[in-house]
């Protein structure tokens, strides 16, 4: 229940945070909403010597909707879920973050924190992959962007450099003919995903599926795109048979994790079930 001792810094600018990261190297951890980090520290599963609290950096808390939806790395789930403009421009993002944890978790937890931590059962990575989100990170050399596809390297490991901080994440606006959905089976105690599937489709002028992206979280060590499923649904008319055929290919080529809540075998089966549900919902939405 009691974390180990650490040095605490609360920078108010990104530059300051980055220089603190440079200064303290591997001893330092960024503190965002803290709902992954602080419980782990209380159980002494991790004992960082330095915490750099990024919640006082107002520049990274914004949520704006223009040509795309841009969410600050420090924006809370609640700020995103309760934003009407986000909901109308990119409903799946609001739906997904509204399913994370509980009210109090959503009041603290941040978009950047979720992506940077890359918990294998976190919800947001699946949606970031399915929507092709772009992550902007700032380090000592300045800012760079990372495609969601390149972000999740392995369990709890991302493409971020140790001294980089996520300043914003950009999600596309879902225009006419596009649809996206996130479907999740919850682990009943932790409320993380046993399996979560995000699906995005864009219909062509012929009404067929012109583009699809499907990503799975919760089932394996990291959130994973479902290339075979995407290929199978693309070009089809998106009817039940097409969804079923595409679903059959879901989760075939990925690693799984099992635990007391769900075995690998069950997760494998549920990837298909939830892919079907997410795809069907996304296609229905795309059709308007």
């Amino acid at each position, binding site marked *: *229940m009691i974390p180990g001792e650490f040095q605490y810094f609360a920078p108010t600018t990104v530059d300051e945070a980055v220089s603190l990261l440079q200064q303290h190297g591997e001893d330092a951890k960024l503190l965002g909403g803290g709902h992954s980090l*602080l419980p782990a520290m209380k159980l002494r599963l991790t004992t960082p010597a330095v915490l750099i609290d990024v*919640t006082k950096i107002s520049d990274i808390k914004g949520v704006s909707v223009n040509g795309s939806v841009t969410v600050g790395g420090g924006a809370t789930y609640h700020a995103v879920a309760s934003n009407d403009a986000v909901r109308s421009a990119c409903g799946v993002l609001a739906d997904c973050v509204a399913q994370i944890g*509980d*009210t*109090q978790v959503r009041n603290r937890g941040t978009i950047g924190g979720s992506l940077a931590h890359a918990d294998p059962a976190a919800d947001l990575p699946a949606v970031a992959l399915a929507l092709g989100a772009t992550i902007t990170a700032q380090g000592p050399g300045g800012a760079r962007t990372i495609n969601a596809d390149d972000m999740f390297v392995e369990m709890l490991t991302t493409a971020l450099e140790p001294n980089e901080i996520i300043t914003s994440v950009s999600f596309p606006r879902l225009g006419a003919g596009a649809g996206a959905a996130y479907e999740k089976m919850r682990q009943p105690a932790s409320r993380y995903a046993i399996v979560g599937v995000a699906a995005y489709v864009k219909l062509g002028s012929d009404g067929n599926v012109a583009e699809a992206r499907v990503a799975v979280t919760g089932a394996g060590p990291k959130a994973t795109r479902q290339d075979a499923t995407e290929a199978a649904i693309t070009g089809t008319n998106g009817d039940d048979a097409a969804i079923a055929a595409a679903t059959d290919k879901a989760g075939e080529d990925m690693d799984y994790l099992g635990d007391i809540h769900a075995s690998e075998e069950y997760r494998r089966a549920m990837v298909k079930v939830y892919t079907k549900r997410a795809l069907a919902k996304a296609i229905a939405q795309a059709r308007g």
Partner: protein
Amino acid sequence: MSTISVTVNGRTYQSDVEPRTLLVHYLREQLNLTGTHIGCDTSQCGACVVHINGQSVKSCTVLAVQADGAEITTIEGLAQNGQLHPLQEGFWEKHGLQCGYCTPGMIMSAYDLLQQNPNPTEDEIRHGLEGNLCRCTGYQNIVKAVQYAADKMNGSGNSPGE
């Protein structure tokens, strides 16, 4: 040690805290506001819910230093001028508590819920309280208590919750 300045239930405190001091420990042990409880160590149970700047948070998962400059409301700050808050009344009227250990956090979460959604359905109440565990009541009377408060706060008639 860091020095923080926080306003809790309308009163401002200057305090020295260790960076690692959890907000819940600060409230309970330095300010003697023991109405906020601790029920777990992994942010599941919600016994420690307080409001920071109007939003409900689990005070076991916030550092006291992070609350520097913030306005905090705890269960002790809910009743005004000796008048119970409608939620407190609702929990009493509808037998929404038994041992009472989860109750302060439950009430503070319900308070946030009603701020966001003054007319919640039963389902919305149940989902809105997902961050709080009660082991005694089976939740049915907690739902009724929140309905009672919602009705009362909306001024809809004299027999709330019926």
